[in-house]
């Protein structure tokens, strides 16, 4: 069953079409991935689905569980069950990890906060009282953001470049957390240009120049991306009119 249906999405910035008539369906309960080169519009798509400022001037439709998202604010979309993990998570001076995670789930015991921290491989004792600020590494902040999403139990979670700036052990933990999210009933959308992350998905989309070029089995998409997209010097030019260059 289609959970999120995107039809002919167009978003322009500075005279350039970032999303150029993009359409896709996400099926409930699956781990999906969108792979594509830098500048393909992957993060823009996630930002538009979340309704972030600067990504609201769009045409086309985004239907989430039968409701058009167009007029909903970020928090209204979140209360429908949509959330996003940023490629570079925000830092919050003075805001403790405990409070940050609780914010995602309303009333939550310390034990429940500890549970989600352990699921992402962080020590509750060490991390709960710390601030979500610049004293944490990028990998720690990514894991804390993921812990807050586990606490939220979203219907749809979009993870933007979950592997960027983290070590191998952290990547393993993030993969485990995605397994937990799926087991808890969340639909997952991975935004990536990593073939490894693409391999975690059950269904994949190939994106270039603000459009979906192909979709289907992640292995096939991975092969195509590796053989054709990575060597391609194709640029995300405006108004491509279907000419996909070498890619």
């Amino acid at each position: 069953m289609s959970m999120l249906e995107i039809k002919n999405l167009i978003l322009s910035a500075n005279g350039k079409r970032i999303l150029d008539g993009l359409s896709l369906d996400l099926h409930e309960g699956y781990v999906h991935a969108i792979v594509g080169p830098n500048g393909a519009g992957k993060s823009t798509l996630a930002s538009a689905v979340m309704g972030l400022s600067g990504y609201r001037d769009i045409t086309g439709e985004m239907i989430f569980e039968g409701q058009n998202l167009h007029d909903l604010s970020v928090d209204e979309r979140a209360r429908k069950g949509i959330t996003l993990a940023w490629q570079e998570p925000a830092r919050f001076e003075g805001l403790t990890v405990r409070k940050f995670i609780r914010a995602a789930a309303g009333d939550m015991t310390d034990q429940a906060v500890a549970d989600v921290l352990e699921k992402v491989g962080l020590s509750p004792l060490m991390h709960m009282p710390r601030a979500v600020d610049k004293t944490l590494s990028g990998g720690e902040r990514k894991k804390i953001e993921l812990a807050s999403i586990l606490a939220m139990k979203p219907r749809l979670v979009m993870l933007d470049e979950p592997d960027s700036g983290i070590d191998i052990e952290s990547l393993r933990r993030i993969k485990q957390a995605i397994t937990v999210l799926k087991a808890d009933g969340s639909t997952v959308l991975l935004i990536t240009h990593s073939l490894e992350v693409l391999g975690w998905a059950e269904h994949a989309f190939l994106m270039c120049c603000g459009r979906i070029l192909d979709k289907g089995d992640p292995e096939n998409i991975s092969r195509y991306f590796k053989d054709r997209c990575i060597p391609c010097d194709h640029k995300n030019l405006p108004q491509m009119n279907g000419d996909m260059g070498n890619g």
Partner: protein
Amino acid sequence: MDNLELTKFANIHAAIDDPDTAHLVIGLNKIVSSRTVDGLEVDAQETPDGVKLKIIVAEGTVIAKPVHMCFGLLQEAGIQEIEMDMVIRAGAKINVIAHCVFPNAVDVRHVMDAKISVGPHANYTYLERHIHSDEGGITVVPKARIELAEGARFKTDFELLQGRVGVIDIDYETTCGPDSVMEMTSKIRGRGDDLIKIRETGHLIGERSRGVLTSRVAVKDNARAEVYNKLTATAAYARGHVDCKEIIQGNASANAVPIVEVSHPKAHITHEAALGSVDTKQLETLMSRGLNEDEASDLIVSGLLS
């Protein structure tokens, strides 16, 4: 109401009852309760509008438990003036928590004028916690001049725990000798027609002296904030940083004037100032977890001021 009521508002019964903890409670111009510990000498004299204090920490004395000072008044109107001369002798260590309690203030003025000398390798920490009324009918004017001798350490924090600021005009100036360390921090949230003035100055005159001036202010409604941070360095290897963040909501306004002056080629001072609305990425991160804009803003501001 009994002036000991002040200690209930400050929630320091345990400290007052503890025979090993020094304290001083002053209601308006009356010394309500006091206790000293070995090495701590307190001479308090009542004046028409407050008290005059002479405090000496003897050389080498390390006071293990925080010393609680409670100033304030329970009346709706009044003036309280505290004049303090504090000497922390060489190698001594003291941590003071000052509870400034004005829970019913409608027309109150609280003035603190302090002269503080921190001796060689002595350590002084001063945390000032305020409890005000919700009416904001108070003017608070804390002024301190602090001298740090060689290797001395001084740290101060200002917090408003409850109620409205009213008018606050902080004026602290610290002069830092060789190898001394100074940290001055103010965290204040203003609303209504509150006025917040922070004037913090540090002079790094000793070699290898270090200092940080930190201000965190959040204002909303029609509140105003003016922050003047000045740090000067005139000695080799002096290191300093000025850090000011102010969040503005509604019709509130704020300014920040960081002044850094360096007159020695081997000294170094940095500064950063950020004024404006709540950061969009922080806001949208919390909103993407389901908080509405006001809830997200409150959480961000409370973190900043924590």
